[in-house]
């Protein structure tokens, strides 16, 4: 297989004596979804933080396209093509939907093409009727889509999504599924969510986490992985 887009080597992180991640190694390739599942406190969000640059690991290294990025900031990683979305969507409340998308796109896209690209992205996400609305007027589902739209317009190679279904109703989850499925053909997605069915339906591979370790890694159909998922959730950890 080709060289990985992102790789983590022996990453550990603790917070005040609590080991949140211990010796985690992972590889992510150019497209497809890597699902990360595990109960609360398994270290999923810490892992996301390490990948996007919000947290610095105590030990271990992070590589992106063959280059070490362990000590790069969130901004520097963003410039290399790492985007992410948050558990609670973060958008600019005092700007309109259009302005939010514009800020996200304008670092990558020439001024001439900007409007077309924004409208195209809005169309795809179903935000095209809302462009002139203030972001503070959106529903939580719409905010989620806006945040994803902003991440995509920054034209990332890797998109890290932390709990994207949080606060979404059933239909909205289906809608999000479809969007992510078509996205995953073009870029790599790391999908962290507590809904096992949602992650399983989208992921090419899943990593099962428990107590700061990756305890299982493979295709969703693998017997071994299914066993791990069951074990992790049955223990009720």
């Amino acid at each position, binding site marked *: 297989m080709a060289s990985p887009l992102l790789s983590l080597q022996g990453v550990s992180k603790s917070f005040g004596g609590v080991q949140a991640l211990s010796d985690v190694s992972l590889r992510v390739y150019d497209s497809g979804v890597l699902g990360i599942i595990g109960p609360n406190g398994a270290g999923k969000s810490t892992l996301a*933080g390490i990948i996007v640059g*919000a947290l610095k690991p105590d030990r271990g290294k992070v590589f992106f396209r063959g280059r070490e990025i362990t000590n790069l900031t*969130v901004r520097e990683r963003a410039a290399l093509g790492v985007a992410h979305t948050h558990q609670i969507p973060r958008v600019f409340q005092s700007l309109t939907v259009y302005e939010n998308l514009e800020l996200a796109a304008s670092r990558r896209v020439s001024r001439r093409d900007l409007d077309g690209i924004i409208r195209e992205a809005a169309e795809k996400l179903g935000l095209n009727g809302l462009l002139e609305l203030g972001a503070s007027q959106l529903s939580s589902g719409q905010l989620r889509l806006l945040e994803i739209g902003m991440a995509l317009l920054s034209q990332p190679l890797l998109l890290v999504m932390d709990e994207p279904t949080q606060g979404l109703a059933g239909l909205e989850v289906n809608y999000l599924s479809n969007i992510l499925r078509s996205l995953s053909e073009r870029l790599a997605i790391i999908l962290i969510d507590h809904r096992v069915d949602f992650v399983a339906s989208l992921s090419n591979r899943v990593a099962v986490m428990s107590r700061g370790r990756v305890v299982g890694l493979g295709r969703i159909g693998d017997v071994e992985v299914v066993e791990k998922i069951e074990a992790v959730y049955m223990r009720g950890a």
Partner: protein
Amino acid sequence: MFPLEHLGLALFDGLVNGSVMAFIALGLTIVFGIMNVVNLTHGELYMLGALTCWLLVQSMLPYASALIVAPLVSGGVAVIINMLILQRFGHEPGQTILATFGLLLILQQVALAIMGPAPRSVQAPFNPVIELAGFSYSGFKLVAGLVSISISLLVWLVVEGSRLGSLLRASQENRMMAESLGIDTNRVFMVGFALAGALVGFAGALTSPFRQIHFLMGLDALAMSFVVVVLGGVGRVGGTITAGLALGLLESLTALLLTPTLARVLTVALALLYIVARRLGAPRGGWRY
């Protein structure tokens, strides 16, 4: 040339001034350092202590009475400010700064109305000149320095050693949690404000005989208290005392070469530099996230 003959005096005076500086800052350590309330009236509470002292001595009462009344006045005003205003919005930082800044201006104007724009002074109740190695020193100021450092050390022991310190910290860190443990956080804050106000009011009366009493004197006290608290490590009473002494010495020594005002400019600039270099107030785990 460094005027060596003044060195002894400068060192000694620096220590005494440092003790006083630490003592004045002590209340701010409690309210800002430990309770995390940016109380900009701290300097005005000091001024109120001095004003009370001047008023009492004006009305022919003994100086000693000021040492009892001034803490009551400043402590009382601090409690009233906390109860009627700051507590109403849960000591929310933005609102607290607006309100205490407003109160700072109002208290200044009240003082101006009472004592007028001219600087006032109070006679020391006793003031033998003490001969030390090579220089003479004001006996009263020496006693004031000793009293300052003694009370400061006592407060340090009380805050670090008793339940009070941990109650103050707990109420600041997590109000809900503290409340659920049965701590009346409003009462804890009240005690903190009363103690801080009384201490700085006492300091106001204590320093009156050797400082000018003026309606604008609080501002310098506020700025210097912030300097001392910040350089001592926010929330650490022992650090405040050490920083006070160190800055007292530093100012005395720089004042040998420069003027006292310029020495103060440098001290304030030093504190600013420290704040910037240590990135104080930047959220943990990095500024951005």
